[in-house]
């Protein structure tokens, strides 16, 4: 069954929930955007497997909260039934002076419909350009 408009809105809402959670250092909400067996694979953090491991990883990053914001753009969503992929750009911006662009990248996400709604089964972040920060 093709994705409905409601599915697409829910998947976009999952992405924005993640953005706010990571930027605010909300470890629980960030890890709960993943399935129990979820995988976080990024050029900056390596591969982290399982919601519990992602929660532990998120806790190590929480002290940096409130200094950056994740802006995502140009999402392409494709899928069927209970599975979908999203490809979208990431603009990581420093929100304290000097308000620099820290990183530009692309998320390649796989999402799955669970009883509690759409969740990330896998997030891959490939860095395109990045400054030292």
């Amino acid at each position, binding site marked *: 069954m093709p994705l409905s*408009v409601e599915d697409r*809105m829910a998947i976009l*809402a999952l*992405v*924005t929930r993640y953005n*706010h959670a990571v930027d605010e250092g909300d470890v629980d909400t960030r890890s709960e955007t993943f399935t129990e067996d979820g995988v976080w694979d990024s050029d900056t953090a390596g591969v982290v497997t399982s919601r519990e491991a992602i929660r532990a990883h998120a806790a190590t990053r929480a002290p940096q909260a*409130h200094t950056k*914001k994740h*802006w995502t753009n140009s999402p392409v969503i494709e899928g069927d039934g209970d599975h979908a992929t999203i490809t979208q750009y990431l603009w990581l911006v420093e*929100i304290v002076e000097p308000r620099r662009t820290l990183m530009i990248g692309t998320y390649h996400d796989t999402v799955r419909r669970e009883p509690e709604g759409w969740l990330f089964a896998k997030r891959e972040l490939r860095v395109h350009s990045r400054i030292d920060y």
Partner: protein
Amino acid sequence: MPLSVDDRLEILELMARYNHCADGGDGEGFADTFTADALFEGSMSSARGRAELVQVIASGGGLWKHWLNSPIIEGDGDHATAKVYLVRTGLGEDGEIGLVASGTYHDTLARIDGEWKFTHRKVHPDQ
């Protein structure tokens, strides 16, 4: 009743209209995005009610553009809340075009006569 896709799209369009009116100096259009007794708490000024809302914008416009990202919209029936990222771009004091401000809007909205409007819009500046 949970918010429908139509509700969410209408709220996103309300946010876009707010940007165009604020950036274009259209005070009447800006005030139209709020209910008659709404409260706006900006980073530089506050306004309550239509007359004050019109004035907030009548004194500005043309300097910046507002950009939004990552809207979280929650609600039920005729009431909703939203959080959305904001940056303002423009010519900075250093002569460069860039981000002159950033923050997050915290919004409370209501559907009045079939149209979504802000009842309260508060900017939480990033610093």
